[in-house]
């Protein structure tokens, strides 16, 4: 029976004739059906996937492998455009909307032979840390069905965790890939801002959003990253640098200089077990000859407010287009005037968390409050960037817990948005300053839940990040 471990092994199995793409797709379709209670998928493209697998099998027999992701079964968070397919961002306001084009990442996946198996549940418009804010209902953590998978890319994380696809693409605006990866015990990468084209990614906060990758191991992350990165004429904020190609055989003996933020490990909200595990791992690293040092980071308490001011400001504008005029949900309620019409459509179409963030963002951009909030937050963001630069002048990477607690119970935090927002305290930093971050599933909690460690490098340094990540995974006996 087919069992997935890595793309490399899968490709060997295909070449050896031990499996086929069609057989693999059938396997995943049945897996998804069996795990339907997890609610990871909103829609499965069963027929399309089988048809494509058939084509790929035939093509392989005649001409060999059709690309770096030949037959690799990929799931897409429901914020990534796939031509001819429904696209909803898990929101009622986009119910029935069909995308007319492929996201650049989808074109790149398909060009390298990937099979797209379905679209995955998430928090509405990627806003949330628990995947409880979805018009399609919550996603359950496969390790403990009473717990959340994290968010906002919860469905995409669970799909990899529960073997419902090989890799998933999610999006990460403040931790939406790394945090669910942490909660689900898998690898989750958020690349540098601008590393991957955002064309075809539904915007939450444009200057923070980045498509991220979920996989079971670092090598698969590297292959996917290589495929989907690079310049794109449809996104003027994407970097023109060539896609990162990661050779894991280089620098195997390198001794790293690693920093951690003292305030991060001393934060009162940090779970003691996570703190202890992180500190123990730091000792292991030091013992292995790496130089790990504490660095002052007095701005820690500012990053959550800064993040929520700036992201909600951008979101309030990005979500203005969902007005019921051109597409999407239109209320059947009678209306007096244009303002009424908008209010009906948007009040019915958006969920509470999205409304909360639109209101917050509108507020911080309002005349009279603009400078106190938006302008000030921009200044903090610039300070953070400068501070980060200084750290990376001396260190190869920064390490920290990914999330201050392990996966919490469903409904545990859904009535306290502030506490929910604090779950992002370690992840939003990378989005604020634009650097790549990865969550590695190194640890296990006494609750039985996995949890991870986050590693961040400076801008565009995904290759060193992935090499270091593999070393850390190996040290933990995982790869």
């Amino acid at each position, binding site marked *: 029976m087919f069992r997935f471990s890595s793309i490399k092994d899968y490709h060997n199995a295909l070449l050896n004739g031990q499996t086929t793409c069609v057989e693999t797709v059938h396997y995943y379709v049945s897996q998804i059906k069996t795990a339907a209670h997890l609610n990871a998928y909103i829609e499965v493209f069963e027929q399309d996937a089988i048809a494509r697998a058939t084509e790929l099998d035939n093509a392989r027999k005649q001409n060999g492998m059709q690309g770096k992701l030949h037959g690799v079964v990929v799931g897409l968070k429901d914020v990534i*455009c796939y031509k001819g397919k429904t*696209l909803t961002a898990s929101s009622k306001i986009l119910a029935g909307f069909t995308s007319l084009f492929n996201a650049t990442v989808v074109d790149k996946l398909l060009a390298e032979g990937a099979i797209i198996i379905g679209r995955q549940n998430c928090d509405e418009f990627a806003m949330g840390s628990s995947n409880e804010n979805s018009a399609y209902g919550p996603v359950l953590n496969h390790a403990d069905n009473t717990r959340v998978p994290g968010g906002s890319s919860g469905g995409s994380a669970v799909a990899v965790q529960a073997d419902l696809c090989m890799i998933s693409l999610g999006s990460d605006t403040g931790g939406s890939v790394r945090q669910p990866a942490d909660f689900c015990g898998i690898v989750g990468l958020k690349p540098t801002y601008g590393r991957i084209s955002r064309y075809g990614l539904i915007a939450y906060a*444009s200057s923070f959003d980045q498509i991220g990758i979920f996989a079971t191991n670092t090598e698969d992350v590297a292959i996917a990253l290589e495929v989907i990165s690079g310049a794109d004429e449809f996104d*003027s904020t994407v970097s023109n640098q060539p896609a990162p190609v990661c050779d894991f055989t280089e620098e195997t003996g390198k001794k790293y200089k690693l920093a951690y933020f003292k305030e991060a490990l001393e934060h009162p909200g940090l779970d003691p077990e996570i703190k202890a595990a992180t500190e123990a791992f730091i000792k292991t690293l030091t013992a292995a000859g790496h130089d790990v040092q504490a660095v002052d980071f007095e701005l820690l308490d500012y990053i959550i407010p800064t993040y929520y001011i700036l992201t909600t400001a951008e979101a309030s504008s990005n979500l203005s287009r969902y007005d019921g005029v051109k597409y999407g949900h239109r209320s059947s309620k009678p209306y007096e005037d*244009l303002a009424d019409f*908008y209010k009906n459509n948007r009040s019915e179409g958006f969920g509470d968390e999205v409304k909360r963030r639109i209101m917050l963002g509108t507020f911080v951009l309002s005349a009279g409050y603009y400078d106190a909030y938006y302008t000030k937050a921009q200044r903090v963001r610039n300070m953070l960037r400068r501070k980060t630069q200084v750290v990376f002048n001396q260190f190869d990477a920064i390490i920290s817990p990914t999330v201050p607690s392990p996966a919490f119970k469903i409904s545990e935090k859904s009535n306290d948005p502030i506490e929910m927002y604090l779950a992002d305290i370690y992840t939003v930093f990378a989005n604020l300053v634009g650097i790549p971050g990865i969550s590695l599933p190194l640890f296990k909690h006494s609750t039985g839940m996995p949890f991870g460690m986050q590693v961040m490098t400076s801008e565009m340094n995904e290759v060193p990040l992935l090499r270091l990540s593999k070393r850390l995974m190996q040290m933990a006996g995982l790869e």
Partner: protein
Amino acid sequence: MDYSEKYEVVIGLEVHAQLATESKLFCGDATSFGAAPNTHISPITMGHPGTLPKTNKKAVAYAIKMGMACNCEIEKENYFARKNYFYPDLPKGYQVSQHTTPICKGGYVTIKTAAGARNVQLNRIHLEEDAGKSIHDINPDFTCLDYNRAGVPLIEIVTEPDLFSADEAYQYVTEVRKLVRWIGVCDGNMEEGSLRCDANVSIRLKGETKLGTKVEVKNLNSIRNVKKAIEFEIQRMIALVESGGKVQQQTRSFDASDDTTFAIREKEEANDYRYFAEPDLSPFSLSDELLNDIKNSMPTLPAALLQQYIAEYGLNEYDATQLCLEKETADYFSSLVSHTSNYKAAANWMNGPLRQYMNEHKLSFDSFALAPEKLAGLLKLVEEGQLNFSIASSRILPVMIETGKDAATIATELNLLQVSDSNELETWVNGVIEKMPDKVAEYKKGKKGLIGLFVGEVKKVSKGKADPKLVTSLLEEKLK
């Protein structure tokens, strides 16, 4: 009663010019006017989820061109900003515009006034995308939306409150339209909406330094309407103040059917556009190289060309001005004078017979087929005395334009070349002398002015073909 001694009028104008690029400001959709509704609407224009803008470099270059034509300072570090508001014809719920860093700052446009030329100070020129069109009068129950125009690049040219009469406003818009057409960044067609104007009008007592409460008048779709609307507003405001009322800050619309304005928004609504830097577009810097390239691609502007025509070609101001009304006319003239050195004649021909013919036949220089060198050929024949001016303009020129043949060919075919053959001339001259013995006697007695009569008579007999100079000298000789 004339209140012009008591009140001063202060006007600021905002002119929106649609840039004549082939594609929209942030996507590849066509900008052409008059297409069937909603046919130039890609997912990007419609603001579909996942779409992103991409700046049209040509639009940026056009905005810079206009800035250079208006003597503006060009901002080298630019970014776009989002202007947030809800309206059905605004697909994204925000307009991508510029806020604190307009691409062109300051500058001026020179207008002619009764008191001479004056520079109207500009505040800024900025780049932005147009909205779609809401059409309210097709169906009584619905508003129809056409998004073809959404995303078309616009420049907004904003003056300081530096215009002081309806006439000045008229001159200013005329000049702006001439400039945008001259440098080719906008077709200047107000009826189709490629050039739109809003006027901010206020009055104050003479000597007052503070600006009065302003009224914004929208929907001015011709230069005439700009003038009429402002004239109406001035009268309305003065009457209001004279009768003890106060001008209210309002937005008004112009009704061209009776040249009046009416309020559309009683009080300026407290619009909070929540501007912020457009995060989907990176800030962009303009290099010196780019600015130099654009500068070098600029045509000579009408004011400079006018001076050049006066200085280099010895034209008078009127003739030069006429030639500089449109770039196509000036281009034709510049080409014409490269084939003839008789500049004055060239100007006379263009402002005279050629313009008359073109007016009568509704032609314009941008689609005029007669090659300047052919016209120069006609001028040469006249200059050399082989054709007289009236025959050349009334009989040769129309045939040249219609057939494209050269002047000499037509003149020969129609047998219109002046005769300088002395035998034939002598026959005509002798005939006239024989026919008019009385006048000849008077002439011989000293009434030398009669020579003109004889020459005229020879012209008549020869049907205009006799070269008048030769005829004159021949007559003088014979009548000694």
